[in-house]
């Protein structure tokens, strides 16, 4: 449902994403890993049609991100890095606005999604006054509200307490059967818990595209050790190139 082909993006002299290709199917939960500045968020921003790639393209839910960007955005649920929202609005009116743009009936939908993301208690609070965890879950609710077939979540559990993390992971697992999900995270246990696929990138290039089990088999050790081994102190050509 997501097919990324040779995506490239540079900001001035910095190459943020350099020839990234991978694909994700229905039922997959892909963990998008890499050190800070590896190009994860930039890739996700291109997939969600916020940034346009310099070259290459991708298909999301069958639509081209450059030529059919509105159709992609209709099909996609996207949670950006810091869960941006309109701070002066209450959570409820914010979700109402999202429903309005997406042409869905607000009342039942908001109730359902608030329940799913456990934000019923803060619906009447201004988003600016919410704690980080609630704020992120309002963002998650926003991404789920139209029951999208593809979900792209940039660090969905960042800032959540252990209970909330547990809930969100369960939610993602629950959703995964019917959807295609990409999450970026720095928490490697999370990858083990919910992802059946891993794409590891560094300096804008894909280093590894496989499954958690396969990675352990080929590289030995746990995911943290493998992550360290692949992203520090190794020559690029050891595993380089797009998968």
């Amino acid at each position, binding site marked *: 449902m997501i097919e990324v082909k040779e995506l490239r993006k540079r900001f001035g002299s910095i190459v943020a994403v350099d020839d990234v290709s991978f694909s994700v199917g229905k039922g997959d939960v892909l963990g998008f890993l890499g050190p800070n500045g590896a190009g994860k968020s930039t890739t996700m*921003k291109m997939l969600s049609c*916020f940034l346009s790639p310099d070259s290459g393209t991708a298909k999301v839910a069958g639509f081209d991100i450059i030529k059919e960007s509105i159709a992609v955005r209709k099909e996609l649920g996207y949670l950006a*890095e810091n869960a*941006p929202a309109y701070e002066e*609005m209450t959570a409820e009116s914010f979700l109402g606005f999202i429903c309005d*743009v*997406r042409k869905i009936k607000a009342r039942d939908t908001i109730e359902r999604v608030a329940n799913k993301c456990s934000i019923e208690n803060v619906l009447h609070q201004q988003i600016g006054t919410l704690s980080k965890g609630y704020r992120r879950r309002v963002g998650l609710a926003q991404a789920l509200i139209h029951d999208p077939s593809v979900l792209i979540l940039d660090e969905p559990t960042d800032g959540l307490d252990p209970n909330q993390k547990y809930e969100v992971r369960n939610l993602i697992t629950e959703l995964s059967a019917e959807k295609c999900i990409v999450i970026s995270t720095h928490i490697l246990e999370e990858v083990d818990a919910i992802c059946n696929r891993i794409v590891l990138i560094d300096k804008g290039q894909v280093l590894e595209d496989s499954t958690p089990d396969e990675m352990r088999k080929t590289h030995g050790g746990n995911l943290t050790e493998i992550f360290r081994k692949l992203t520090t102190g190794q020559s690029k050509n050891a595993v380089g190139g797009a998968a």
Partner: protein
Amino acid sequence: MNGFLSVFKRELKGYFFTPIAYVFLVIFLNFAGIMTFKDGFFEAGQASLYIFFINMPLLFIFLAPAIAMRLWAEERKSDSIELLFTLPLTSVQAVLGKFFAAWTVVLLALILTFPMVITVYQLGNPDLGPIISGYLGSFLLAGAFLAIGSFFSSITKNQVIAFVLSIVGCGTLLFIASPSVMFRLANYFPKSLVYIAEWFSLQSRFESLLRGVIEVRDIAFFLILIAGWLWANIMVIKERKAA
């Protein structure tokens, strides 16, 4: 159309969720009244709103940039622009939605000056023509200033910079044909250029409307000016969504 309406409604509500609209309305109505009476509304001995309207450029030159400055700068600052443009709506819909929301606040402010109209009707027998054309001119002038303000708001994430640049932009177009500026321009530039400058002057267009003659070319001038600045605004947003 749907995207336009959603953005318009959200933005308009946004003005009233925050104190901006109330502060604007109170200050505007106060000064519109004070300036009119200070400038000799009674002493003139005429049942006319000319003195009331003639102060509008001076009021709007500060107040229109004050309402417009947040339109895009705030979206950039809080990253909510990333949320906005990963929803299925186009840059054109978003820019127009925001602009018309700001213009609606101004329209409301102008409607709330109705006691002035009642006053002149109590005092005498004024011409309806100049009152209608005065309101139309004020509304169009504010629209032009808001379009300029919206443009400058889109090029920065800092509202203060947006505010100051908008005032300079509005001021240039307003005062370019004032005698002292014209005199200086004539010293340095060829005559044809001075004529062009005069043609662009908002002040003379506005005053021509105040005389009670609604001319198509004056209205077209304002509308084209608004369209031009909004087009530039759309281009900026399209090219540079991420700051």
